[in-house]
């Protein structure tokens, strides 16, 4: 099970994944929850910024850009 989890920033563009675990704590964790990133939420990697970071994700109907520092603390299961 654990083997299949990857950090969100490793999700290839155009691919979807299910959120499985947030490894962040405190304020950052709460911000992620506010975005609706709870267990089993489907996210899609959409687009990278011209310099490769941040990446835009499709999260519950909204397009949200996250830096790799934040995305790496979201463990997902690729679909």
């Amino acid at each position: 099970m654990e083997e299949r989890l990857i950090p969100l920033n490793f999700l290839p563009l155009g691919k979807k994944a299910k959120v499985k675990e947030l490894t962040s704590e405190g304020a950052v964790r709460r911000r992620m929850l506010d975005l609706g990133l709870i267990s089993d939420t489907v996210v899609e990697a959409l687009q990278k910024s011209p310099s490769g970071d941040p990446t835009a994700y499709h999260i519950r109907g909204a397009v949200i850009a996250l830096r790799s520092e934040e995305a790496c603390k979201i463990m997902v299961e690729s679909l």
Partner: protein
Amino acid sequence: MGLTNQSTGVGVLGGGLRIERTTPDDRIIALTGNPNVGKSTVFNSLTGLNQHTGNWPGKTVTNAQGKYRYKGRNFILVDIPGTYSLMANSVEEEVARDFICFGKPDAAVVVTDATCLERNLNLVLQTLEITDKVVVCVNLVDEAKRKKINIDCKELSKRLGVPVIPTSARSGEGLKELMDAVYEVSIRNHITDPIHITYDAPIEEAVQALETRIWELIDGRINNRWVALKLLEGDAVLLDSLGRYLKFNLLEDKDLCFLVERAKRQLAEKGVNTDELRDRMVSRIIDTAENICSRAVTFENKQYNSTDRKIDNILTSRAFGIPIMLGLLAGIFWLTIAGANIPSEMIASFLFGLEEKLTDFFLRAGAPGWVHGALVLGMYRTLAWVISVMLPPMAIFFPLFTLLEDLGYLPRVAFNLDNLFKKACAHGKQALTMCMGFGCNAAGVTGCRIIDSPRERLIAILTNVFVPCNGRFPTLIAISSIFIGGTVGGAFHSLASTLALTGLILFGIMMTLLVSSILSRTILKGLPSSFILELPSYRKPQVGRIIIRSILDRTLFVLGRAAAIAAPAGLVLWIMANIRVGDLSLLTHAAGFLDPFAKLLGMDGYILMAFILGLPANEIVVPIIIMSYMASNSILELEKMEDLRQLLVSHGWTWLTGVCVMLFSLMHFPCGTTLWTIRKETQSVKWTFVSFVLPTAAGILVCFIAANAARLLGLA
């Protein structure tokens, strides 16, 4: 724009906010919503010009209040900061929650985005946990229709248990129904039956254990179930606000304190610690939102966002993202420069024609020479210059810029540039505040509030002045078209000056990054904080509205401010130029004193003095230079750009002088308004001082290097 207006009147409410009621029957309505849902459009459409803005007491969060009348009653709309949640993760959320909770509004309107309803319901559900007097406004239904998203508002209303009104505030659709629903809820006590979110069994048990005692203590003044949840969460910020509201600390009650401790212990035994509790609560709310939406929202076209994605694939792509951004920037400058030329000259010849008439009038009236000098040659001439040089570029630049803003392009700029800001240990949203700085640095500094982390916010504030505001654009445009466009001449005239200006702006952005990076490695050390940026859908801009709003709100406001400063400055200047000490005027003495230093920077004493005297407003720098030169050269009439060129050249200007003036204009102390704003935003004299010294030092250094390098190389 920071048009502050102190309200006077009765009624002190949540967070110490003053609300002015004309009669005790006036209803107070809180307007909340996520950012970017058109909340301010709803606010503006309902209240029109009947509004004023200020700050929440003791907080750097903007507050706007407005009034409207409906069915013979007054409604006071209080615009709450746009937030995603009421969990008090930021000052905005704290302010929003405190007002809904302790401000006791007669109703709360939650504005939501029809194209992204599920995420917006999070805030709706959190609001419903605090109060049942809620009206949900599903805004942007026109956009949703365009994307083939169907929203069943009846079903939504049934599920949520409160009125749900579809609106398209930009076209005014649904606003009457919204006012109607607000009337029902706030005046006729329309009974709502809001959805109750039930949490997991252990949490519910813990809540039940507390509820009775809380009821006894606070007597239902605040939803006690919600208070119970917050006590279990140990939300210190809320308990603090609650204590101030109740005038006693709930946890000082021994019984309650005991119950809370016991409930927390029991929760922990079941594996629910504070973090887990929060996680479960948030998850439950989000699940509920998802559930409601699955019944009320249908997507006819699953690919409803595909157009947006296609646009983003180009505008933020590796190959085109940056070039398009620079192209748009240059395009706006080109249109501004090329388009402003002719109207500028027309206004100038009109106003200076009027000057002759005024002079005739003064002569015929037999007014003494000094009266004519002070009023016409001093005040009027400066004013005429400011208007003719500022009005046309602003009237072109602002609408174009607002257009980009309205389209939703600016967040893409932040997205494109974030990595550069990250490397400078700064915040990506600094790109947005930088964009605001193009309009007005004071507005840019205020805009830095969107950056949560104090360290990164301070960096953004201190470096905002490195982007030229519209007060400096006319100077830059005039000088680049004379000394850079002019040397090329012909068809490439405006092209060359556009390129020069764009280059200068890029240099300013580079300096922003460089200085940010130096700051975050020295006096403002720290790691970049978390960065979350929403890329909202592209929206069809309302061109007519943009033109009206950008001309009224921005152009005329800024022009008015500039004129108010230019007129007295013109007077002072004329006096300085005409009072003689010994053989020379005061002005010449001052300029002579500054001259040796100014020469080192590639300028002259008059120019440097103009920058210093221009402290109240950058707009008057060029008029001061002109006045000073004309004082020693009074025969000259200024009607065309060519006249200005001759005047400057006759006072020894070369292309290098032009470049140095442009560089120094880009990098020197912020104007008085901006300094005052920085003082207010940072609450610190020290940082205001730093914001003064930093760009000035950078400007001196860069001009010194440029001037001396060019001289050494024999270029000038």
